[in-house]
């Protein structure tokens, strides 16, 4: 079931789109903003609301790599792996970040369900490479130390919720 707020947000997007199909990315984004990711159930609900079939909407949802069709942590870290950041040796930072988070590669979520690490093709911050983004916050000129500070700050900020239940309990879509 979509909440009242989600419905309102989707409708707003529909008003400024020529068709339901055109409003779909906005609708998916709106629901993801409140739920963190798009479950099969959310997908069916949005599809029904937009008068589309789940297949039509899923086709759009899976096209966008930032629409998450499986659960992610509370914060999504996007580490840029594009040319400038590669020249500035993001790979060295990646290894550090993986150790810091206790995970083994891109696409994984920390055990406490706090962070998910994903690659990004470009963050538009070449002048401050290597760069990464946590949620909507951009960080440039990264070093091992600055990464530690950023992660620690997020952990302190979320301190109260550190032990909160991970949202990773639900199953992944079969594909």
């Amino acid at each position, binding site marked *: 079931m979509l909440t009242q707020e989600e419905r309102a947000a989707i409708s707003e997007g529909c008003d400024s789109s*020529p*068709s339901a199909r055109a409003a779909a990315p906005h609708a998916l984004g709106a629901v993801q903003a409140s739920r963190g990711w798009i479950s099969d159930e959310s997908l069916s609900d949005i599809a029904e609301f937009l008068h589309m*079939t*789940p*297949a*039509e909407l*899923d*086709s759009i949802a*899976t*096209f*966008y*790599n930032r629409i998450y069709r499986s659960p992610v942590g509370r914060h999504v870290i996007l580490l840029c792996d594009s040319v400038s950041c590669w020249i500035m040796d993001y790979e060295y930072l990646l290894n550090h970040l993986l150790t810091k988070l206790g995970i083994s590669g891109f696409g994984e979520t920390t055990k406490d369900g706090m962070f998910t690490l994903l690659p990004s093709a470009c963050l538009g911050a070449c002048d401050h490479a290597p760069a990464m983004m946590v949620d909507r916050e951009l960080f440039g000129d990264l070093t091992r130390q600055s990464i530690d500070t950023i992660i620690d700050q997020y952990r302190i900020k979320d301190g109260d919720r550190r032990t909160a239940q991970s949202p990773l309990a639900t199953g992944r879509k*079969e*594909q």
Partner: protein
Amino acid sequence: MATLYIDNKPYEFEEGRNLLHTCLGLGFDIPHFCWHPALDSVGACRQCAVKLFKDENDCTGTIVMSCMTAARDNMRISIDDKEAHEFRAEVIGFLMANHPHDCPVCDEGGECHLQDMTVLTGHTYREHRFKKRTHRNQDLGPFVHHEMNRCIACYRCVRFYRDYAGGKDLEVFGWHDSVYFGRHESGVLASEFAGNLVEVCPTGVFTDKTFRKHFTRKWDLCSAPSVCVHCSLGCNTIAGQRSGVLRRILNRFSEDVNGYFLCDRGRFGYEFVNGSRRVRTPLAKKGRNQKLEPLDRSAAIKRVAELFSSGRPVIGIGSGRASLESNFALRQLVGPQRFFVAESETQHSITTEIVHALRRTPASRASLRDVAKAGAVLVLGEDVTNTAPLLALAVRQACRTAALTNAHGLGIDPWNDAAIRETGHNVRSSLVVATPTLTKLDDVATTVYHAPPDDISRLGFAIAHALDGSAPAPRGLSPEIEAMARGIARDLAQAARPAVVSGAGSGSASVVEAAAGVAAALYKVNHDACLCMSLSECNSFGCTLLGGRDLTAALDAAERDNAEAVVVLEADLYRNCDPAIAGALLTLPRNVVVIDHTLTATAAMADLVLPAATFAEASGTFVNNEGRFQRFFSAIAPQAGFAPGYRWIAEILSVVGPEAPRWETLDDIVNDMESRVADCAGIRAAAPSASFREGSQKIARQSFRASGRTALLANTSVAESPNPADPDSALAFSPEGIQAPREQPLVARYWAPGINSVQAVSKYHGDPPAALVKGEAGADAAENHGAKAPAAFASHASEWLVMPLHHIFGSEELSMLSPSVASLARSALIVLNPEDAAKLSIRENDAVEVSNYALSCACVAAIASWVTKGSAALSVGRPETQGLDLPEWLWIRKAGAP
């Protein structure tokens, strides 16, 4: 004619197509995947690269995608250019990176477009040393098998399923190097045209699931050109068999009829041929209440011949599912006065009305191609998706004509599919769906109107009146309907080539009259108008040309003349009329002879059953819904037990009367019919005769690669057995002969050197589009022949007007004997208006009893607001609802209610 220079040689061509299409037509091989002759170009796969030069002095040139480049006069291109060749080899290398190379276990192997293209480009070594991406497959239902790992992401499947056929449950998921083509979750593909994925897919992702159960490589199939028997459209097919088992049905391209596609009933309904209820030897009863027991062939013929020496008349009942030749032979055997058709009085009046309307209309008789190109379509009374599925596919294409015109205005080439769809998002041609039941075309219709048949008919009369003031106007129309009629009339009058579509499905002669009236009135203001009507069976039109009367008349004749016997030809009377009439017809005469391929309820009542050959074992002619004579040829060689209906009758005739015509071959009957029945004058032209030869050879039913020819029977003899003879056609049961004939009616498989897949069809030119067929009476017949609009629908107090509800899977007799089709059929359904349902305390899925004075049938309730209050819709063609002649006023009650 324009000139195209290919590798410095000039070729003449017709402008208007893209380079790829033009070059394929000229006989060149250019590798391609995403382009398909019916789906046109999107330029997705980058496989069809060629070099384009500015002029004769340009030796550098640029690489272009041939499918995305218009072929123009004096253009210079190179296909063999080294760079272009390397480019193509590189692209196929990418496409093959994740392909599993599992050809030996793949159903597509040996007729795979991907194999052909890979060989064509010269990509012979696997250079991908890494792990391949893999997918999980889905269960897509009984027709289509899914094997995603073989995908090369050409997007043809979704372009056909979603864009062309309007399906909404097959999509592409993901992005980058991991795209997935399938459903949102496992489940039966909802489109009636899903089976075409088998042919559209250039590799083995989508394959024929029914074929898997009795698989044979293409080169081992013995195939023949055939015609579909599962509705009246007469789609052209290719039937492939091995060891006497019919293995599969493929599309046979026909410019005017089915184009490149078939519906799933036509493609998968074939299994009745291999069914357990087939009769394969003559059967006879010793007495009325005895069992049917096998009988010797000559004894059977002698027994039938004796019936003719009694002096009492013999009644013949032909049918719309038997060939024209068999029906004609029966008519000759019993005499035209005693020849009847297996249709109830109502059905027969509708069939006759349709044939009459099509023959007399001043408008053109529309082929499916004409409908697909119509600028506006009015569907009056017919749920075409369920009664004549491919007609629905054609109507769906007609909805795009406005977008095509719009794109033309924008300077977009007619083959540039993606651009046309992009610019045509909000441009839709006028499509009016006015039917008693909900249809699957409603989603693309500009106007939808669901009402009982009489009200549909009234709308038709109102439209005709709005077009032509002299046409009769229905009385007491509501202002809304009148306004709707005027709007529809305006759209039809202004459209280029408007089409009126109707048919026998609503069970109402009045609807047919109304549709004919609209076509006639429309012709007065728009001479490009055309009319398309569907009938109930594959040869209903042909049967009507022979002039038989209905079953009630047959019963009258049997009683009046004290008939000695009744001969029923390929029909189950119980499906076609009141069981009381059928019962009387099968008990009153002293003898009942049934000639049929399946042991139907009627055959079980017979004293003697002569086993008939099906379309796969016999050659013959069907006349489709537009009056087109189409020949089908036997794929399976004649076998000892059974024979085509006309052959049984010819043998009986040779015993009965020495003065009877001697019919040795099919051509003898065809020639005899052409001279005796004026209306069948076109039959001889349906296909070349048995004496036809290309060069000096017959057309080969088998591929020259057919294997095991001598080894097959080596357990009994090492000597090669002679090929079965075929005196009825120009085709041979042999790998020797012409492999790729030029005559479309004789094409037994699509093949060209290097192209083993069905895509070889691009190398076969269709006949030039035929001129529109005008009705025979010309403009004079435009005057309405006295038809009057019926009164408006009014509900009754305790009865409901029960309208026919057709199901693509479930309503047709023969396809229901095919396990795959039968698995999708639901039990009989009655759809009620919510208020009526509440009044009867019926809820969704409740068991319901529908009855009249004589019959009562059990069905399951569904509730929908499109049903007009006071009416209901009931599944037809189901065993539960047999014997009802819908629409009919019936009682409805919840099962168990008082």
